[in-house]
């Protein structure tokens, strides 16, 4: 069963202007789902639709197999969320902020202290949140999302404003939550963070899902369309040989005697190297350009 299933969701803030067009998202239970997309692609709008803050023009949203239209608002007992920047009552202390939400979620009193400790804000519990740094606000926002020990945690850009230590701590907390069997939907523009955490990935572009799958499927894509830099002694000769094999040569840097080529699959590389060696072209360097998630993300959303 999926923790979240968005089925054929379309949405527009104005009539006839859809910002999301027929999107389908499936977040498997007990996974960490990385939700990627450029600014304005529709990530936050999708999250607001999942949370019922916006009503779709068409389609349905299911949380743990149940249509949210039928379970609203009781399904929020299972969902904790942090949407964009954390929203706090600035005139109140961290403790009072959590006390408010604990009344709505009916959580035991000691839970407030527990989550404050979890996000390292135990010492600042009496401090007004208006005086908090951005990172502290973000951590308190996370504490709010975790207050009622939800099964599904939706975090929209949770690393915003966090320092490197804060990001490491957040990663630890998320891994801990995953090991407890929680499902996490994580939207972030810091792709490196997503790559280290997630088990599933969805990529949204201009209001449509352009990729959804697990990391293995992503690795398969990573093996395709790889770029390699070759350093040779005779650039022009190497050009000719590679062109015979119909490989695209995007760039040549004569000064450094380097050539950048694009391959359909990494299996093609040994043949090219063999051809060059057979033609007496000396090769000094063969460097695949790392096809990391960021590069892939950019190529998919280009």
């Amino acid at each position, binding site marked *: 069963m999926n923790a979240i299933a968005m089925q054929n969701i379309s949405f527009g803030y104005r009539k006839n202007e859809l910002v999301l067009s027929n999107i389908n998202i499936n977040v498997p239970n007990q996974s960490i789902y990385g939700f990627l997309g450029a600014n304005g692609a529709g990530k936050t709008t999708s999250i*607001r639709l999942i949370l019922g803050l916006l009503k779709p023009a068409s389609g349905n949203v299911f949380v743990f197999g149940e249509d949210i239209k039928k379970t609203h608002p009781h*399904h929020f007992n299972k969902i904790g969320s942090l949407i964009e920047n954390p929203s706090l009552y*600035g005139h109140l202390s961290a403790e009072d902020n959590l006390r408010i939400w604990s009344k709505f979620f009916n959580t035991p009193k000691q839970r407030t202290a527990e989550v404050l400790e979890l996000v390292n804000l135990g010492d600042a519990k009496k401090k007004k949140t208006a005086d908090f740094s951005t990172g502290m606000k973000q951590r308190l926002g996370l504490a709010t999302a975790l207050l009622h020990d939800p099964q599904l945690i939706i975090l929209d850009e949770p690393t915003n404003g966090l320092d490197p230590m804060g990001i490491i701590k957040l990663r630890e907390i998320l891994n801990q939550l995953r090991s407890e069997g929680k499902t996490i939907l994580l939207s972030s523009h810091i792709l490196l963070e997503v790559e280290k955490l997630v088990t599933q990935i969805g990529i949204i572009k201009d209001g449509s899902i352009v990729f959804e799958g697990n990391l293995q499927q992503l690795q398969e894509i990573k093996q395709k369309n790889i770029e390699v830099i070759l350093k040779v002694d005779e650039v022009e000769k190497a050009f000719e040989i590679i062109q015979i094999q119909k490989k695209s040569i995007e760039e040549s840097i004569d000064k450094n005697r380097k050539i950048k080529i694009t391959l359909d699959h990494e299996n093609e590389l040994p043949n090219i190297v063999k051809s060059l060696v057979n033609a007496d072209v000396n090769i000094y360097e063969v460097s695949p350009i790392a096809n990391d998630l960021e590069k892939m993300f950019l190529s998919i959303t280009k």
Partner: protein
Amino acid sequence: MSFFKSIQAELIKLKFPPILWLMGFSLCSVLGLVLISHILDINNVVALGKNPWTKVWTAGVSIFSVFIANPFVIMLISAAVFIEHQSNTWKYLYTTPKNRSHLFYAKLSAIILFILGTIVVLSLGLLLCGYILNFIFPETEFGYYTPPVLKLISKFTHTVISLLGVIGIHYFLSHRFKGFLVPASFGVIAFIVAIIIGALNKPIALYYPYTYPIVSQEHNMFRTNNVGIVDYGWLNNVEVFSIIWFVIFIALANVLEVKKQVS
């Protein structure tokens, strides 16, 4: 129980410094005016065989109802709802396991409780005023007479009922406009107009909710004999109209809030 907890949560939010200042200012204004006016006119307070508390009650309720109640309620409601707009917390509030109507009425209940709490403190303050006057001027005999508490409760109850229309309108406006200035400014202008209409002594006051706290009771400040006030038992027509305005605006605000898209 769940609704009670939600009201508690809403009351925590009202620990907003501008709201506490507003409460303090309103209380000090009424009590200060009552005390000073009685000290300056002490000879009229001393009347053989008459309960001096009645005069203090009337002065306190009148000053509050005519000059303070409207601005206090307008500012309080504008600020209480503005807290959510300013903190951008609607998105969290509406992702709690409470339906929107529940949250809407919890906030409204907290605001009304806050108004009632202020009136309770004001009543205690009026009681204190009497004993202060008795301490300074023992001949006033405040200590000799029993304070007619039920009479004070009755007067303030009428004030609160006559304020319901304004409460409804401003709860509606504060939800519709995201800033503080629009509902607050509208309320201040409406209050000034209410004073003018109250002074006119004409039936138009029956159709303007901001005049209701001014004309619903005899405050000895405006003549109301031509307004057309009709008593229906314990309530009068002005108070009934106030309840009707309240019900209409609260119902409308609730419907719109339930349908609101939170972007």
